[in-house]
C-alpha cells in the first residue's frame, strides 16, 4: 500500500492564539486521509485544537550547502537588533 502513499508534514496548533507548529510527518494516500491519520498519530493525547497537513513535496527547503550565504551574513549585524534605543521612563513592560 505504501507505494500509493505520499509523505505529508503535519502542523498542530496546541491552543487558540498560538501558531501551528510542525510536529512530524506521516504517510497517506490523500489529504483527507492525511488529516485523519494526523489526528490519530499526533493529537490522541489532546495535543491540539487544529491540524494542517501539507504534502512534503510542496515544501521548498533551504539547502544545508547554502548555510554560509544564507545565515552567516546576519552574524555581525548587531544593529539589526533593537537594542540601541533609550527606553523612556515609565515604559516598564516593553
Amino acid at each position: 500500500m505504501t507505494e500509493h502513499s505520499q509523505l505529508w508534514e503535519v502542523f498542530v496548533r496546541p491552543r487558540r492564539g498560538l501558531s501551528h507548529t510542525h510536529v512530524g510527518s506521516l504517510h497517506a494516500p490523500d489529504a483527507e486521509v492525511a488529516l485523519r491519520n494526523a489526528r490519530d498519530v499526533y493529537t490522541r493525547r489532546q495535543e491540539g485544537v487544529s491540524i494542517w497537513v501539507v504534502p512534503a513535496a510542496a515544501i521548498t527547503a533551504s539547502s544545508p550547502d547554502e548555510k554560509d550565504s544564507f545565515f552567516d551574513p546576519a552574524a555581525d549585524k548587531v544593529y539589526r537588533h533593537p537594542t540601541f534605543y533609550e527606553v523612556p521612563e515609565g515604559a516598564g513592560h516593553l
Partner: protein
Amino acid sequence: MSLFEYLLRLGDDSLVMTQRLGEWSARAPEMELDIALSNIALDQLGAARLFLTYAGEVEGGGRDEDALAYLRDDTEFRNAQLVEIGDTDFGTAIVKLLFLSAYQNLLYRALVTSGDERIAAIAAKAVKETAYHLDFASIWTVRLGDGTEESHQRMQAAIDEVWPFTHELFESDDVTRSVAESGIGVDPATLREAWEKTIGTVLQQATLETPTSTWKPTGGRTGVHTEALSYLLAEMQVLHRAHSGARW
C-alpha cells in the same frame, strides 16, 4: 432483569469489537492505520468497560467488569454476531466497522436522552467517538471501493459477506421492548431506516452494491454464536483465567 440484559448487549458489542480490532495491532497495512485502528479499539473498550461495570452493579451479584469480560462463556455473551466474525482482510475490518459504527452512532444519539442517567452519560461520551469511527470507516470504504479493481472486488466481497449479519442489529424482542417502554433504551428497529440511508450513501459513493441476499443469521442476543466467538474468547480470556487476579 431487562436492564442487565440490555447493558450486556451494549457492552458485549463493544468488547468483542475491541478484541477484533486489536488483532490489527502491528498488522495493519500502514503504521498510521495501525494506530488508528488501535485508537478506535480503545474507544470501544472504554464504552465496554462502562457498560459492563454498570451491568455488574445492576445485577447485584458482585460481578465487576473483569468477571463479566473474562469469566463468562460464549453462550453468556450477548453481542450481535456481526462483531464476532473474523476479518478476512483489511476490507472486512473496515466494512464491519462501517456497519457497526453507523448503528452505534444512531443508537447513542438516541440514548443521550435515556431516562437512565448512567446510560445517558456513557452515550454522550460515545456518540462523539462513534461519529469519528463512522467517518474513518466511510472514507476508507470510498477509497477502497472506488480504488483499484482489486480493492473494489475485495470490498464488494466483504460487504456481501458481512451484510447478512447486519439484520440482527435491528431486531426487537422482549428486552428491547421493555427498556424502550420504560424510556431507558431504544427499540433498535426504529434506527434501521436512518442506518440504511447512511450506509446507502457511502456505498453509492464507493461504487459498491447493496446486497440483496435474504439470509438473516441471528441469535447473538440470546447467546447463540458462531464458532468464531469461542476462539476469540479463548484468546481474550486465557491470561485472566490462568492467572486469576493478575494485575499490571
